[in-house]
């Protein structure tokens, strides 16, 4: 096994949230003590409900937001020692909303050429041919360099966003829900494009999504987040076939089946999503957990790491391993 291209070691991000003029600001633990590593060439999916800290984690991986604690390492080197432009050359983002991720006042040529201009790669003619090349690579004809984003459809725009991310040939691409703003038919095209690009360019993906069907299709490993904690991490097949954390189990049960006669899935969770500013003590999932025990209400579960992956749940702590 080669060295991980990207490592998160106990990464934490806090936000101070002002509530009122005279109230003390609250602390939001958006990402709490998250550790994982990404191997060269793999697709790691990060899943979870809205507000679980996925996007904050993505912004930290991109170097847009410094972690409050812990460290992020690129091929063994701490991010803090890696310069801004070197981070950019290693890891690039593709965002969720292709309508807000492309500057409406710039042509596609300018948008895709921006990374080349920032990194001073090549002269004007070289850049132009490189931009045309990348557009072809993502399945867009080169004559679109003079088009503006408003002239394109959502799927085409997302291809442009992918082209921009690939322009400086990063090793890692962080996708923040890249298909959730697209029509289902277009989603499949984009996903296939992503898989093809990964093959041909030997890319590593961090794929953030709440769409489990998409994740099952594309990911090698899956990390499940709940309220800022990484509750389970494992191979895609293992996670989908035999989820261990009760949260993962419930999350998987909430997928709609293609067969309409089966009706809607059972009501997924007991209770509401808790207030992230005031998370429950002990295991953060215990108020909604079907198999909560006494310990869950008081003691935060320690992570259990074994051959199948990593899980943070009292069910797997110590002797009660088999359930």
């Amino acid at each position, binding site marked *: 096994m080669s060295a991980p291209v990207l490592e998160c070691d106990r990464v934490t991000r806090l936000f101070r949230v002002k509530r009122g003029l005279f109230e003390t600001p609250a602390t939001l633990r958006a990402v709490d003590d998250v550790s994982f590593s990404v191997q060269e060439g793999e697709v790691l999916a990060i899943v979870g409900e809205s507000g679980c800290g996925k996007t904050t984690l993505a912004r930290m991986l991109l170097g847009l937001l410094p972690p409050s604690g812990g460290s992020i390492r690129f091929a063994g080197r701490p991010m803090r020692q890696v310069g801004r432009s070197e981070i950019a050359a290693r890891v690039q983002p593709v965002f969720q909303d292709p309508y807000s991720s492309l500057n409406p006042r710039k042509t596609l040529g300018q948008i895709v050429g921006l990374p080349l201009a920032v990194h001073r790669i090549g002269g004007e003619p070289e850049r132009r041919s490189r931009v045309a090349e990348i557009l072809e690579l993502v399945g867009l004809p080169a004559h679109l360099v003079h*088009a503006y984003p408003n002239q394109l459809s959502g799927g085409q725009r997302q291809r442009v966003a992918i082209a921009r991310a690939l322009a400086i040939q990063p090793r890692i691409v962080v996708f923040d829900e890249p298909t959730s703003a697209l029509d289902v038919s277009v989603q499949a095209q984009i996903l296939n494009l992503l898989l093809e690009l990964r093959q041909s360019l030997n890319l590593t993906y961090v794929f953030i999504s709440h769409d489990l069907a998409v994740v099952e299709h594309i990911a090698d490993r899956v990390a499940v987040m709940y309220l800022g904690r990484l509750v389970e991490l494992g191979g895609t097949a293992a996670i989908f076939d035999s989820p261990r954390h009760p949260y993962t189990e419930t999350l998987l049960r909430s997928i709609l089946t293609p067969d309409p006669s089966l009706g809607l899935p059972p009501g997924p969770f007991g209770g509401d999503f808790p207030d992230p500013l005031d998370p429950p003590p002990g295991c953060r999932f215990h108020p909604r957990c079907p198999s909560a025990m006494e310990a869950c209400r008081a003691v935060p579960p320690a992570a259990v790491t074994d051959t199948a992956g990593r899980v943070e749940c009292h069910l797997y702590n110590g002797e009660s391993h088999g359930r």
Partner: protein
Amino acid sequence: MTGGLFADEFRVDAPTPREVMRRRARRHLGFLTGTGFVLAVVLLAVFAPWVSPSDPFAQNLDARLLDPIWGKGGSWDHPLGTDSLGRDYLTRILFGARISLLIGFGAAVISGVVGSTVGIVGGYFGGRVDAVVMYLINVKLALPGILIALSLVSVFGGSLIALIAILGFLFWDRFAVVTRSVTQQVRGQEFVAAAEAVGASHTRIVVQEILPNVMSHIIVIASLEMAIAILVEAVLSFLGLGIQPPTPSWGLLISEGRSFMFFKPWLIALPGLALFFLVIAINLMGDGIRDITVPEGRGR
């Protein structure tokens, strides 16, 4: 990936943003009227020495206070009559347009540069920088503009340059307020995060990503401020604190005509109307630009 399957998908039919604007402009009556009038005034002002019938300073005491062409004894020698020193009134008004436009344009440019810089910096960097910017804006909003202008003009005198500078540094607050909030809005968009993730410098992000999206707002406010500066200049000149005689300025012409108000009302009415129509035309143009540059889907 490419080829037959997507052949239709890549035909780009939608117009470019520029085409959309051009199309909207052609249908916008207010914009066309306002811009047409402003352009005409600009041309007349620029070519004033060639189009005006005589010299704006040439006095002819034998031909004082002649009526315009439609009045008693009007003649084509002086289509709009003469003033109390026998100077051709049409010429005076044409040359007055130069002063008004210079001051309006100069003040709008200075206040636009100052205000937009302050606003964009505050909106982009946020936090403490923004707190300082908000403080500056609030201080400026609390100052009585015209009174400050009056006192500054009485200190520094009423030269053209001084007036432009004073008015320019007095009217930047509206630029700052608007550009600040628009910048905050644009900053939250994902294309700014994408540029950051690419490693672009703050300067590049502000100039290439933010500014093009704030520019239409700046132009709209600039047109409003231009109209206001023209009016304030007229007020100052009317009060004797602005442009000094014998330079022709519309405010000064009105002031000079005041003593003959009841006998020769056109001495006041003509420069007043010129001022009125120019300001209306500039505002029509500004409103038009706002309508034309709204993003897709909003307004028609």
